[in-house]
């Protein structure tokens, strides 16, 4: 069965190093998983839509299309640049305007680029808590790429971390997951709901 993956790249430059990292992770995931369909989404192109959604509380048709793709995907790859200790505000606004329960139980692989290796804990200190809050199923290995990693001597190490992370993603997709997904149905039998037709239950 085809595995569907959405890769979100929050790189703001063009060309973007973060997008390059996302593409490398996607290539590795294709090798690991074989039959995959991948949609790579660059948030830069949605910058206006994301700001509008932050102000109006609803997503434009094309931003909603991305949220729908994210919700429907079997797994997410998230690649962000690290600016001033954390991910860019645009990425946080994208997540803020998404439904809170959109990615419950969904396997998510986290990757980041940064100007120096001293930012390398940003995945664990900034990105991981965000996805814990969203109740995603987070791949244990995070992939951080500093400028050094793109040089010939570092390439091997970066590729090894990428393959380790996509290997973990593959085993998560092959397993039973967290057993939790987004709940779309209205629960007619919650205590609160039942108390409407039967006040004694209140």
């Amino acid at each position, binding site marked *: 069965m085809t595995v569907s993956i959405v890769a979100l790249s929050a790189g703001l430059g063009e060309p973007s190093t973060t997008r390059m990292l996302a593409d490398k992770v996607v290539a590795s995931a294709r090798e690991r998983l074989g039959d995959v369909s991948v949609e790579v989404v660059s948030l830069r192109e949605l910058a206006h839509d994301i700001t509008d959604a932050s102000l109006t509380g609803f997503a434009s048709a094309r931003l909603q299309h991305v949220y729908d793709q994210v919700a429907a995907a079997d797994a997410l790859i998230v690649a962000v640049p690290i600016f001033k200790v954390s991910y860019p505000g645009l990425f946080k606004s994208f997540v803020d305007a998404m439904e809170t329960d959109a990615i419950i139980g969904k396997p998510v692989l986290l990757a980041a680029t940064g100007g120096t290796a001293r930012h390398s804990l940003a995945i664990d200190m900034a990105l991981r808590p965000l996805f814990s809050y969203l109740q995603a199923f987070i791949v244990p290995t995070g992939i951080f790429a500093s400028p050094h990693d793109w040089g010939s001597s570092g390439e091997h190490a970066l590729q090894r971390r990428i393959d380790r992370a996509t290997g973990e993603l593959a085993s998560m997709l092959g397993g039973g997951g967290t057993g939790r997904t987004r709940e779309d149905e209205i629960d007619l039998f919650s205590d609160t709901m039942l*108390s*409407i*037709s039967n006040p004694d239950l209140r």
Partner: protein
Amino acid sequence: MQIGIFTVGDVTPDPVNGTTPTEHERIKATVEIAKKADEIGLDVFATGEHHNPPFVPSSPTTTLAYIGAQTKNLILSTSTTLITTNDPVKIAEDYATLQHLVDGRMDLMLGRGNTAPVYPWFGKDISKGVELTIENYQLLRKLWDEPVVNWEGKFRTPLQGFTSTPAPLDGVAPFVWHGSIRTPEVAELAAYYGDGYFANNIFWPKEHYIRLINFYRQRYAHYGHGDPEQAIVGLGGQFFMRKNSQDAVNEFRPYFDVAPVYGHGPSLEEFTEATPLTVGSPQQVLERTLQFADFFGDYQRQLFLVDHAGLPLKTVLEQLDLLGEILPTMREEFAKRRPANVPDAPTHAARVDAKNAEKEVQA
């Protein structure tokens, strides 16, 4: 079909002439707008309830009674009355008094209120908002439907041998609408009691409202009040119109661009495409409004937001004159498409008749 207007009651600077109305001016303008609504033949005027600046309507029944004394046919309503932070006993008393004063020409719409600090200011907890809505409404029903109430709940002092005065006019309590856009429990509450359900249908794409309207219709049928298409549905809407559609766009754009809620965001063109807001000619407003029934099913009440974003009173009154011109066609077209089994919007007179008919059957 009842057609009318609803106001938030915001005091917003006019970005074109740079002035901000005083609270006094805003309150008086609200009265003028309601009188105009009556004059052009609209059915409903509804005011919001707020307890924080920049909003003025903190005391809806005071304003509505004052308007009621100066109008003839207009049904006076709310959008919304806060069922969470108001004492249900005071709601029962205030709105029953209003009902007597205006000879039944009123109803009310209940809502939760989403301004977090208002809850603690009234001694309530916003995290209990849904529970407060349910318990308070169950008490309100008893206060209006039972002569002597013995009651105990979680959120209020118990009542022993309490009689709410005055009793509803003709023994028929004011009709209740429940306004909600996200909370299934509110749709369930409306369905269980056979009350009306209102989706504000402004500021967001109409697709956001369809799920709970359909849920309410199904549950209305589940509780035996009729078929799903017979449930009592109300919708909001928003427009700005001029005879020439380009004039409407040019005049409204400076208000749109800095408006509360959506200002500084999407363009007017993007927003009018995505949401029910129509900026254009009266014909365009007419066509867009009639499409609501295609999407949501035939419904009973349409309320428009017209006094928003700092528009001056003169402009708002002109908007109502233009609405008055398309009103007969709008009514005709809605009536033409409505199947015979879909009921009219409830009025006090019709509900008194229904009650008397029921009594005769029993006798």
